[in-house]
């Protein structure tokens, strides 16, 4: 309706109003035919978000996964500075404090505020079974020191230092999680063990990721006999119990190898049997994706299979890959723990959580010194966190949810 003077199509011409013509306004702004399609900044942020950004938002809604992710980030951050965080060095022994129970941190002595401190031990040997009995009399107050000098260490083997986050009082002890049969501080050993236990999962997963993507990719892209052979192989590997095979493979590793070689050997063994799930996922995705037009286009332009798989096909389900890799890490960690626990995995002096737990193999020892089981706590927490994170990632990566 541009003006009021127009006649209606039918009937008598309408009488013009006698009064002033009604004011109407015509915008002098240049006409913009796209005005409806233009988005407000708010909408723009939402509609034009990349796939990764949408996934990120979806992931943030998954509270448990976010918490788990932060927990894992913090855990991995600690392994950067284990030497600094641990109150003692990895191998320092305290012959006077063998199998000492955990010392609790106190803030108040009676009603007097002292700040964080522990009560010192005094121990006695029982005549009957030569068991050490530790008591913590309320007389010895040992205030904790912070950012102090303690055991010497080589930070990542680079430079020497002796600064620790917390140290015992001079002449005192600080065994927050107790000590083991050689009087080594459990807390320090758990912190150092994280370095091995957390990285072995990542390394093992990268081995299995490489194998899974390569084999699954070839099988899915080429189909035919390559697919058949790899499918049969996967079936065989899946129907084998893993731990006995891991044990057998770990038993092959020569005793003469250095601990670091054993470490890499174990990661490869862990990865060798674990790629099947990933390979299956990659294969089934590729089977459907390779029929897509963009894939045919790439083929017609003369791209080699290698390039098509890596450049065009894999990126379209990277998010799924990341989620399934995250879910595979805990298996590795549990596998390493089990192997080391049985004494076929990592060996001293390499310290992982599984190696620490192998000290707790004997029930009679555990019954007397239950704190030897404490390294299990980080194992369970990390495995749980990886599971939650993986669940969250998988949900976020699923566009239909």
């Amino acid at each position: 309706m541009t003006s009021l003077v127009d006649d209606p199509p039918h009937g008598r011409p309408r009488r013009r109003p006698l009064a002033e013509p009604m004011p109407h306004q015509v915008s002098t702004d240049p006409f913009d035919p796209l005005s409806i399609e233009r988005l407000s900044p708010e909408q723009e942020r939402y509609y034009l978000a990349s796939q990764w950004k949408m996934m990120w938002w979806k992931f943030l809604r998954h509270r448990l996964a976010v918490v788990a992710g932060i927990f894992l980030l913090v855990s991995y951050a600690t392994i950067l500075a284990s030497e600094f965080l641990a109150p003692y060095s990895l191998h320092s022994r305290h012959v006077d404090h063998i199998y000492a129970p955990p010392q609790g941190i106190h803030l108040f002595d009676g009603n007097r505020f002292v700040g964080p401190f522990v009560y010192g031990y005094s121990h006695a040997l029982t005549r009957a079974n030569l068991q050490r009995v530790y008591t913590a009399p309320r007389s010895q107050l040992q205030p904790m020191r912070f950012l102090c000098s303690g055991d010497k260490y080589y930070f990542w083997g680079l430079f020497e230092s002796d600064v620790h986050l917390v140290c015992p009082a001079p002449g005192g002890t600080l065994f927050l999680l107790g000590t083991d049969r050689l009087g080594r501080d459990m807390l320090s050993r758990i912190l150092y063990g994280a370095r091995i236990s957390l990285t072995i999962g990542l390394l093992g997963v990268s081995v299995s990721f490489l194998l899974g993507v390569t084999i699954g990719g070839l099988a899915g892209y080429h189909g035919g006999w390559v697919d058949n052979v790899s499918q049969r192989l996967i079936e065989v590997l899946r129907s084998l119990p893993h731990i006995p095979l891991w044990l057998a493979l770990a038993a092959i590793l020569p005793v003469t190898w250095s601990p670091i070689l054993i470490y890499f050997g174990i990661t490869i063994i862990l990865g060798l049997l674990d790629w099947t799930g990933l390979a299956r996922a990659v294969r089934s995705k590729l089977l459907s994706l390779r029929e897509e037009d963009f894939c045919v286009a790439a083929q017609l332009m003369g791209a080699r299979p290698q390039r098509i798989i890596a450049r065009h096909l894999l990126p379209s389900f990277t998010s799924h890959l990341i989620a399934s890799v995250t879910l595979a890490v805990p298996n590795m960690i549990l596998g390493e723990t089990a192997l080391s626990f049985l004494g076929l995995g990592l060996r001293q002096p390499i310290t992982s959580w599984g190696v620490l737990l192998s000290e707790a193999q004997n029930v009679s020892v555990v019954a007397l010194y239950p704190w030897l089981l404490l390294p299990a706590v980080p194992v369970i927490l990390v495995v749980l966190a990886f599971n939650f994170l993986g669940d969250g990632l998988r949900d976020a990566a699923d566009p239909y949810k």
Partner: protein
Amino acid sequence: MFGYVLRRLFIMIPTLLVISFLVFAIIQAPPGDYLSSYLSELQSQGEAVNPQKIEYLRKQYGLDRPFYEQYFIWVTNLLQGDMGYSFEFSLPVSKVVGDRLALTAVVSVATVLFVWLVSFPIGIYSATHQYSLGDYGLSIIGFIGMATPSFLLALVMLYFANVWFGTSIGGLMDPVYLDEPWSWGKAQSVLAHLWLPVVVIGASGTASQIRRLRANLLDELQKQYVVTARAKGLPRGRLLVKYPLRLSLNPFIADIGTLLPEMVSGAVIVSVVLSLPTTGPMLLDALRSQDMFLAGSFLMFLALLTVIGVFVSDVLLGFLDPRIRLGAGATK
């Protein structure tokens, strides 16, 4: 159906052949042949070596032949029931293992049954009462069960039994029956001791099975046909049993295939901790002392157990799902 079972049986043969080859390659991998290390060990202990016996063993197991011939001899011997010779015990393997294999099978099968019986009702409850207090509680327990390594659970159980009752609950039978021949009393004693390893080994499997059944059932319950059936007046319980449950049962059965290897794996470690008279502890010893024929026959047996388990799950699936039975099985 018969054709399907037959076809499935036929596939097992090449699978087992590949597995046997893998196992043999693994037990062959350490350098040196077993007899020479056995000889040097005997000599270092100052024991008399009977050269005739060594020669006989060498011939019997073809240890001087090339790899593939040795493998062939090993497999043909296995097929005839000769599992080789244990150098550690100086006895044929079949004499050493005794009833360990049977007990392993009993523990594994009992564990799978336990996992099913427990996870089935709990999974259904969790799905039908989603976000209820019970669902949350069960989910938390399930997650913790999934994250706890089975050997640790075994240790903790042993620890608490020790602290609370002052007894050890390890083993699979009363110590009095240990070297006894099988009798009714012994069987009863085994049954009475079976629950602990079964619960410990089955814990993680139960947890993951519950989660899976819950997820599957929830997917089904959200579908339109459920609403339609409810609108038409089908009682809730009857509807659940008639359609969604049957559909979500499929993956549940198919999972024996993956469940059984996990159970067998877990059983190996748990039996070491609980000192069960199954394959676990002896396999570990055999691997440590490189007693290769012994280790090889254990590995082979465990693999056979899982392959049969997968077979059973496939046959059950065939009964349940006509699509699989009719050989459309080329799953993508």
